[in-house]
């Protein structure tokens, strides 16, 4: 297996995520353009123009190129996956120079910028195993403005799903224009404190327009989406009909005493790209 070639592929994966939005996001923004008026419409027009310019001039759509975040699923029959962590890290360093990416890793105590977008635990990689003999890597570079609106709450189980809905809607009202709406809202329910947040982020991997396979959960997603869009916060908080593009929920069982809810907010730049590596080392990005 040619590891150098795979590393080049990971650089291309990051490039694709930073420069080109997935089709489902663009389609959803175009729909928003149709229904918005006045100042809200101007914002969506700017966003669509920006998407176009970024793609044509081959540059990151937003100056905040984010924290480099990856979700990796390794097929159980994939040979020797041990190189992946080092390769993803090296690809981030290369991408920072080549694309380029804004240096976004700051040492919290000394404020020193590492300048290469890596550091302890960064890139942030979530590992999982699955069936098959391929590796799937999702790149979701995550911007700071929307991430700052993320929140965890440990509800009392007695507050139930109504408590979940109230918490999310209240938080999104309070976030207002800060996370660059129209946003995508990822919600993790259950697990523990850490897992709820992780599931909230993982929920962002789902394309816009897809619902949870469980009908009851899908209905809750759709209810929360409607409630947030009723607020009138609108594009960039300047007023309008589209405050969220979609709401995605992922769940895990909860402890009898706990009802953790993790809210992860993603800006309109719902950056996502996927790479599949085959057992012979060849790869493709879609």
């Amino acid at each position, binding site marked *: 297996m040619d590891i150098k070639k795979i590393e080049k592929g990971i650089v291309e994966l990051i490039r694709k995520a930073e420069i080109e939005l997935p089709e489902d996001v663009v389609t959803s923004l175009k729909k928003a353009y149709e229904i918005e008026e006045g100042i809200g419409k*101007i914002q969506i027009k700017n966003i669509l123009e*920006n998407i176009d310019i970024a793609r044509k001039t081959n540059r990151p759509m937003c100056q*905040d190129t984010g924290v480099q975040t990856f979700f990796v699923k390794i097929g159980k029959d994939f040979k020797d996956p041990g190189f992946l962590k080092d390769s993803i890290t090296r690809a981030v360093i290369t991408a920072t120079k080549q694309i380029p990416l*804004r240096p*976004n890793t700051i040492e919290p105590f000394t404020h020193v*910028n590492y300048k290469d977008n890596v550091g302890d635990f960064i890139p942030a990689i979530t590992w999982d195993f699955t069936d098959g003999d391929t590796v799937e890597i999702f790149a979701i570079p995550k911007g700071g*403005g929307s991430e700052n609106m993320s929140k965890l709450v440990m509800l009392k189980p007695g507050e139930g799903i109504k408590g979940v809905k109230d918490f999310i809607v209240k938080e999104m009202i309070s976030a207002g*224009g800060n996370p660059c709406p129209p946003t995508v809202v990822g919600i993790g329910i259950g697990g523990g404190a850490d897992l709820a947040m992780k599931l909230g982020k993982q929920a962002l991997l789902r394309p816009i327009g897809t619902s949870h396979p469980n009908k009851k959960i899908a209905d809750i997603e759709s209810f929360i989406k409607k409630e947030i869009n009723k607020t009138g916060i609108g594009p960039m*908080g300047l*007023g309008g009909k589209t405050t969220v593009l979609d709401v995605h929920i992922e769940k895990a069982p909860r402890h009898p005493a706990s009802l953790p809810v993790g809210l992860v907010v993603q800006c309109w730049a719902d950056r996502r790209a996927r790479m599949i590596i085959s057992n012979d080392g060849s790869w493709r990005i879609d």
Partner: protein
Amino acid sequence: MEYHLEIPIKKDDVKKLRVGDIVYISGNVFTARDSAHQLLLEENGKIPFDPSKMALYHCGPLMKKVNGKWEVVSAGPTTSSRMELFEDSFIEKFNINMIIGKGDMGKNTQKALQKYICVYASYTGGAGALAANNIKEVKDVYYLEELGMAEAVWIFKMEKFGPLIIAMDSHGNSIFKKTTKFDV
């Protein structure tokens, strides 16, 4: 109303601007985020540029150096509410009359906008590639070594930068009062 303004903007022109107006600006802006606000406020001596002659842009740009010269890759606004901590003192000390950013700002900024005749204009967050198109020249950079690329003070010459939406004016009005319950 739609306005095309040259920077520095005259106080009388600032007073004309009302929430919801659309503005395009030409002239110099300086970028400052959290660290640059802190640093400039703590600076007792002379600073190397005159902020009162420029608009303040809440922005941490993505830059690259080509043949020894800085070029803008992507330069949209950053979340302005983080600067609420310093903005009233900053407006007072540096005689700022236009701030460009994104998202809501709080009560202290609103009061300072009225007291010192200044406006807060919103540009589309995340539209970094589009904004870069309106930056005609990178004139200078200060504090790059201390603060790094995103936090440094960059001086950009803008041409017809907009559409900016007047989100808070110098008469105590805010576009966010209806849309947001956020209060910093």
